[in-house]
C-alpha cells in the first residue's frame, strides 16, 4: 500500500523525480521516453518520494534506477524480483518498482519472474522488451524472433521466443499489460493502471534499441502501419482495429476470427467485448502474438490484457503473523532461550 501525499505539500513535478546523474543511454534509445513518462506520471500518483523504491537488475534498462530521485538499488543480473521481495516483506508501505530488460527478466531472471507472478507481491514490474541484448552489444535474446541474426547467431537463431504475456499468465500473474515507448499517452495510462492494481503488475514495454535492433516495433507505432498491426484493448469495448476501424475480432467458440465490418453485415457491437477479468479470453488475446490461428495475421494487443484481485504475499504473511499474535501472544525471549524442558544444577 502506498501512502497518499500530505495534501498540504506542494505538488511534485516531473523534475522532482530526476536525479542529478547524467542519463547515459544511446541517442534514440526508447528508454528516454519511458523515463520521461515515468517522471511525468509519478507526481500524479501522490506517493511521497521517500516511499518509492526502484530495484533493477543488469542491462541498459537497469540503469533506470540511477536516474530517478527516489530510493533505488541497481543490483545483479536477473535478481531484482528476488531483492524486491525482501524489500516488500520488510516494509509493505513502500511503493516498489522493478525495471528489467528482456534478458534480465526472462532469461537469467526467468525463475524469479515466474515466482514473483505467482507470489503476487504488491509491486510493479516494468520489463523493457527490446528483443535484443543491448549492454553486451547485440546478442539475440529470449524474446528475439526465431531466425534472428545477431552477434551470437550469425546464421539466425534456431529457437522460439517467449511470449511474455503467456508466460506471465501461465505463472498466475494478477495483472498483465503491454505498451510501448513510442506511445507516451498509452504508456502513461498503463503506468497508472499498474500502480492502481494491488498485486504484482507486469507491464511489458516494447522499447526500441536504436543501436542493435532499431525499428523492431515501429510497425506498431508508425502511422501507416499501426492500425493494421496493433489493437488497443479497453475494458468493455469491442475488439476493433484496421485502417478505418473496419475490422473486428469475434469468437467462434474459443477460436478468434477476424471479421470485415464493411462486408460481413456485423457491427462493432457484435464483436468480442474485452473483459480484462476473463482469464480464458486473456489467454486467447495473449496468443495473438504468434498468429497461431487460421484466418490471417492477428494484430498485436496493447493495453491491460488481464487483471484479477487476489491477496498479496505480504498481506498474507503479515495477516498470518497478526492472527498468530492475537491467538498465541508473543513469547518472551527468555522463554525462547529456555525452551520447554529445563533442569537445574544446584
Amino acid at each position: 500500500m502506498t501512502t497518499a501525499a500530505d495534501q498540504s505539500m506542494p505538488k511534485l513535478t516531473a523534475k522532482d523525480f530526476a536525479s542529478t546523474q547524467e542519463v547515459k543511454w544511446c541517442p534514440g534509445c526508447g528508454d528516454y521516453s519511458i523515463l520521461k513518462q515515468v517522471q511525468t506520471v509519478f507526481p500524479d500518483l501522490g506517493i511521497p518520494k521517500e516511499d518509492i523504491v526502484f530495484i533493477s537488475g543488469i542491462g541498459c534498462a537497469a540503469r533506470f534506477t540511477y536516474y530517478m530521485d527516489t530510493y533505488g538499488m541497481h543490483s545483479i543480473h536477473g535478481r531484482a524480483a528476488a531483492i524486491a521481495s525482501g524489500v516488500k516483506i520488510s516494509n509493505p508501505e513502500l511503493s516498489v518498482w522493478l525495471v528489467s530488460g528482456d534478458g534480465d527478466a526472462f532469461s537469467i531472471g526467468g525463475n524469479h519472474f515466474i515466482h514473483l507472478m505467482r507470489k503476487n507481491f504488491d509491486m510493479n514490474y516494468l520489463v523493457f522488451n527490446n528483443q535484443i541484448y543491448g549492454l553486451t552489444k547485440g546478442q539475440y535474446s529470449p524474446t528475439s524472433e526465431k531466425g534472428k541474426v545477431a552477434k551470437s547467431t550469425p546464421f539466425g537463431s534456431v529457437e522460439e521466443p517467449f511470449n511474455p504475456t503467456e508466460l506471465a499468465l501461465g505463472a498466475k500473474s494478477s495483472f498483465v499489460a503491454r505498451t510501448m515507448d513510442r506511445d507516451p499517452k498509452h504508456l502513461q495510462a498503463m503506468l497508472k493502471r499498474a500502480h492502481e492494481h494491488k498485486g504484482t503488475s507486469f507491464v511489458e514495454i516494447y522499447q526500441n534499441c536504436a543501436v542493435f535492433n532499431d525499428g523492431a516495433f515501429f510497425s506498431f507505432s508508425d502511422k501507416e502501419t499501426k492500425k493494421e498491426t496493433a489493437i488497443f484493448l479497453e475494458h468493455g469495448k469491442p475488439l476493433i482495429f484496421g485502417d478505418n476501424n473496419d475490422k473486428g475480432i469475434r469468437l467462434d467458440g474459443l477460436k478468434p476470427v477476424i471479421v470485415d465490418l464493411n462486408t460481413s453485415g456485423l457491427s462493432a457491437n457484435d464483436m468480442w467485448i474485452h473483459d480484462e477479468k476473463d482469464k480464458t479470453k486473456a489467454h486467447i488475446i495473449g496468443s495473438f502474438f504468434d498468429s497461431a490461428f487460421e484466418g490471417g495475421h492477428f494484430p498485436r494487443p496493447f493495453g491491460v490484457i488481464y487483471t484479477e484481485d487476489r491477496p498479496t504475499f505480504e498481506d498474507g504473511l503479515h495477516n498470518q503473523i497478526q492472527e498468530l499474535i492475537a491467538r498465541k501472544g508473543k513469547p518472551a525471549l527468555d522463554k525462547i532461550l529456555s525452551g520447554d524442558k529445563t533442569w537445574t544444577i544446584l
Partner: protein
Amino acid sequence: MEQTLDNKVGSNAQLIDAESIVIRFSGDSGDGMQLTGMQFTDTAALLGNDLATFPDYPAEIRAPVGTTAGVSGFQVHFGSREIYTPGDQFDVLVAMNSAALKVDLPRLKKGGVIITNIAGFDKKNLNLAGYPDGVNPLNDGSLENYIVHKLDVTKLTKECLSDSGLGMKEIERSKNMFVLGLLFWMFDETMEYTITFINEKFGKKPEIAAANIKALKAGWNFGDHTEIFTTRYKVSAASLPKGEYRNITGNHATAIGLVAASEMTQLPLFLGSYPITPASDILHDLSKYKTSNVRTFQAEDEIAAICGAIGASYTGSLGVTTTSGPGMALKTEAIGLATMLEIPLVIIDVQRGGPSTGLPTKTEQSDLLMAMYSRHGESPLPVIAASSPSDCFQTVYEACRIAIEHMTPVIFLSDGYIANGSEPWRFPVAADLPKINVSFLTEANGPDGSLLPYKRNDLLVRPWIKPGTEGLMHRIGGLEKQNETGNVSYDAKNHEIMTHLRAEKVEKIAETIPPITVDSGKDSGKLLVLGWGSTAGAIKTAVRECIGLGYDVSHVHLRHINPFPKNLGEVLGKFDTVLIPEMNTGQLLKLIRAKYLIPAIGLSKVQGQPYTTIELKEKILEILK
C-alpha cells in the same frame, strides 16, 4: 564403561555405577533410531547428565531397506563428568538388523553390550547386509568377545500389541519404543518424559499413543522380569556449573541466536532460505517464531533466498540466509553485491561433505577457503565459526553484531556434526546478552545538507539508511562507487581507494573482538593444537588427556577466522610446534602459514565423520615423543 561400584537392586540384576556411557542406536532408516536416540538423550539430559550426541544417517530418506547403505545411527555419550564428544567407541550397541551390526561393530568396545533384534537377522536381512550365504554373526562365534542379547523385538512388540486394534505396520513401528523401554530399564532412567512426549506427539491419535506407551513399558518390564540381563548401569548426574540447563542442537541454537539478536536490536528478522541438508532445520525452527518479529521466506532458489535477505537488510531488517555448500556456491554473486553495497547480512553455511552434492548428511569443514575467498574481485568478508552445538548461539549472535555494527555481510560456519548434534546448555537470560548497537541515518550527513551514503566512521563503517526516510533518497548498486557520495565511478584511483577501504573495514573488526586465550594447557610450550569449528570437543578431550599423562601440550580454538584475533600471532609464537587438525585437507593451515609464516603442521580427516579423541591423541603423542 568406567565402572566403580556394585550393588543389588529390586530385580536380580546388579546395578553398577558408570562414569560415562556411549550408546549407539543403529538400525534401518525406517526403524526410528533418530527418535529413539533423541528420547534417550532428552531423558539423560533432564536427569542431569552431561552429554554429546551424534546423529549419523544416510542421505536417502528411504535408502534400500536392510542394506549397509541404509543404516541410520544415533550415538549418545552421557556421563557424570564433563562430556565434550559423542565418544570414540560404544559401550552399548543396539543393532536392529544385520546391516546395523555390520556397520557399527568395529567401533564397539571389546566386552561391550550388543542388543540385537533377531528378526533383522533372517536369511533375507543377512543377504542384504552382505554376509556370505550360511553365515550369521549371531551364532558363528564371531561375537564371543561381547555380551550379546538376542531378542526378537519384532515378535515381542507384536505380542504385546496384539489386542491394540492397530494394523501390523503400525505395530511394527512401535518396536523402537520397546527397545527404548529396555534401555531405560538398563540405565535406571525414568520413562516419564518419553510418555509425555508420546502423548503430545500422538495427541490426535490416542490409540497410537497408547500402543507406543505400552511397547515402551513392555520393554522396561522385559528387562526387569526376565533373567537375561544381569547388569544395569547407573550414570549419576554430572557436577556441571550451577545453573539452569536445557539440551540443544546446533541448528536450534543458531535459530534462537538469530531471534535473540533480532529482539535485542528490535530489528525484524528476515530469513531467506531454500531447503538444503543439513541447514533446513534452521528454517523450520525460525518459521515457528513468526510471532517474534521473524519473517521466514522460503524462496524459489538459493539465489532468491539471499537476494530476498539483501532486500530486507536494505530496508532495515536483519537479513539472514541459511544454506550448505552447494547453496553457498550459488549465492556467491549475491554475497559480492552485499559486500559492494556494504549492508548487514548474515550468511549461514552448515557445512557438509563436498564437492558437488558430495555427502549431504555427513560432516566436513571444507568450506573455509570458500567462505574466505569465493567471491570474484577483491571482496574480503568476516568469517566466524561455531565450535559446539550450544556455541552456535553465541557465535551467530556475534555474527549479527558484526554484520550490524560493521555494515557487512558475515559468513557464519557451522557443520553437520554440531548442527544435528546436541549437548546440555546453560542458557543465558535475555538481560545478560551483550548489546548490539544499531543506528539508522535520519539526516543528511554531508556539507551543505548533502547526503554521503558512503561516508565512514572511525571503524570505516558507512551509515545504514532505510528507504522511507525523508530527504535521504539515493541510489546504491553493484557498480563501483565514488568514495563517500556513492555515485557510480569508473575512476581508476577511486577504485583502488575503495578496494582498500573495504578491506581495511574488515580488518578493523579485529579492534572489537576479544583477544584469543588458551583453552587448555599453558600459555607457552612444546605443542599447541590450534582448531576451529566443530573439532573443539575432540581436541579439548585429547589435549586434556595428554596433559593428564604429563605431556606439554595446549589447545587454542578460534571463533573469529577473518579477521583473526589481534594477538593470535603472538600466542602462536610461544610454542615450538603448532598442530592444526581439520576435517579438510588443510584449509586453516594454509591461512595460518600464509599470515604468520610459521611451519604449522596439519592433520587431515575427510571421511564425513568427526575426529575421535584417539586419532588426535596419537598425532599429539607422535609429535611429542
